[in-house]
């Protein structure tokens, strides 16, 4: 699919197939087109070209039938501030034409599931950002969706709440739901997603399971150094230009064998001012920055 706003492409030729039952991550820098892509998937934006099939149906043709079976957490909360979480859930349940007893029962379950019960009857405007976010997620679960679309669900959540939300999402997936999420937290994507796509400028630039992506794109170990940026070039020359990333004075080198690389760095004259920050396994953030960051340069 393809989406242009006034001639400017927000999503350009995005071609994706996501199997049912997985947790799929859509990653990409700000403005990459993630939110726009999600909107086309649940049918609140129409593609400028191409089409989207959800549950085998063309969402532009059968939006009601598709949206009955999915749930969406928007990037920005859209709650009724003057009403309580319970009332927000009631209103939303009616959007799905659920019966009143079914709504009440489901509200009970969701207040439990997202640990909202203690705040269920306060006006939303009195809740902290984290509670509001959890309420937004609860709204998207009211109709027991087969497909759950979450646009940056954990933004603004504290680490403990985030961990517990990951647990909940795993439970939903175990129950058969398909999850499609965007996030700017690479650790989250790495731990939660079975499969992911990295998009930049509206195109998929990488696709695969987090571990596979890392293994296929970068060496398994990363060495982080602090060294004045002016001297990065000399050191890289000494090391025969291996794959690296730089951001300010921070230089990250990628290698199969970090111990051997560390020896080489220590022997290099140009590195006498270098301070070792860490030796660690290469992670998804390295891959993300390598694919989308401005500071990337490629060794030979």
């Amino acid at each position, binding site marked *: 699919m393809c*989406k242009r*706003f006034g001639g400017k492409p927000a999503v350009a030729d995005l071609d994706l197939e996501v199997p049912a039952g997985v947790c799929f991550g859509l990653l990409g820098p700000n403005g990459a087109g993630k939110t*726009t892509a999600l*909107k086309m998937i*649940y*049918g*609140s*934006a*129409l593609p400028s070209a191409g089409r989207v099939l959800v549950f085998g149906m063309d969402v532009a043709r059968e*939006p*009601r*039938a598709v*949206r*009955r079976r999915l*749930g*969406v957490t*928007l990037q*920005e909360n*859209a709650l*009724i501030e*003057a*009403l309580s979480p319970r*009332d927000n859930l*009631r*209103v*939303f349940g*009616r*959007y*799905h*034409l659920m019966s009143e007893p079914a709504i009440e029962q489901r509200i009970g379950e969701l207040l439990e599931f997202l640990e909202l019960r203690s705040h269920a009857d306060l006006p939303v405007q009195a809740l902290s950002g984290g509670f509001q976010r959890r309420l937004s997620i609860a*709204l*998207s679960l009211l*109709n027991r969706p087969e497909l759950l679309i979450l646009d940056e669900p954990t933004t603004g959540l504290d680490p403990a709440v985030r961990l517990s939300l990951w647990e909940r999402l795993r439970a939903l997936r175990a129950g058969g739901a398909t999850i499609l999420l965007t996030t700017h937290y690479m650790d989250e994507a790495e731990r939660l997603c079975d499969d992911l796509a990295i998009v930049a400028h509206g195109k998929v630039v990488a696709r695969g399971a987090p571990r596979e992506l890392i293994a296929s794109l970068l060496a398994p170990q990363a060495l982080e150094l602090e060294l004045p940026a002016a001297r990065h070039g000399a050191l890289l020359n000494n090391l025969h230009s291996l794959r690296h990333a730089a951001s300010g004075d921070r230089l990250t080198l990628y290698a199969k064998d970090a111990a051997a690389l560390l020896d080489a760095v220590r022997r290099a004259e140009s590195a006498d001012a270098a301070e070792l920050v860490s030796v660690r396994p290469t992670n998804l953030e390295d891959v993300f920055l390598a694919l989308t960051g401005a500071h990337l340069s490629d060794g030979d």
Partner: protein
Amino acid sequence: MRASLPYALAVWRRNFALYQRTWKLNILPNFFEPVLYLLAMGVGVGAYITEMGGTSYIAFLAPGLVAVAAMNGASFEVTYNAFVRMNFEKTYESMLTTPIQPEDVLAGEILWATTRATLYGGCFLLIAMLWGLVTPLHALLALPITPLAGLLFAAIGIAFSLRIPSIDLFSFYFTLFLMPLFLFSDVFFPLEERLQGAWIYVAEALPLLHPVRLMRSAFQGTWSPVLLWDLAYVLALSALLLAIAARVTRRRLMA
């Protein structure tokens, strides 16, 4: 796509749920406003006017003000309130994550604005009745005219709201459109007695004129064939504007 009544009612119920929270505060001004108008205009100004349109000035004034109350009740909902829901509170964006379609949102909002108009006009009508300006029987006859006036101004307002880029433009709508209607639509004086020649027919284009005439006839329990024209005008213009709004709403609510 065509609107579906159950989904439109879900949209209506969203607004109603919010109104239920605050109705006690919201409804009070609806009672004060008529009292203030009737005191200042009816009793105050009316003291200097022996009769207008064959009745006391206050009795002339009351039906027009009921229609104006309905107009205002509907207008605020479909202008400022709908604009905020659309652009700032992202209410419609969140509705469009459910099976609700843009046309359902439109239908629900129009129903709601019509409801507010009926509440608003109904309060005024009640005060007028308690004041002795209309008999209970004639008030009952007048009541269904408030949703008609509400529907008309909901349709006009939403057609405007869906087209404008900025909330600031509503001040034009209120001061350059609704305000002149309020002043020149038979509410304060019989317009046709002040007009000559072809202007009498030109004035028939004013939307508020028709609900006011219907309302006044209901208050007085009189009948004339021109009321059929008034009714036809209200229904036809509402239908036309809603058809236009229905075309725009999908483009406006969906990216």
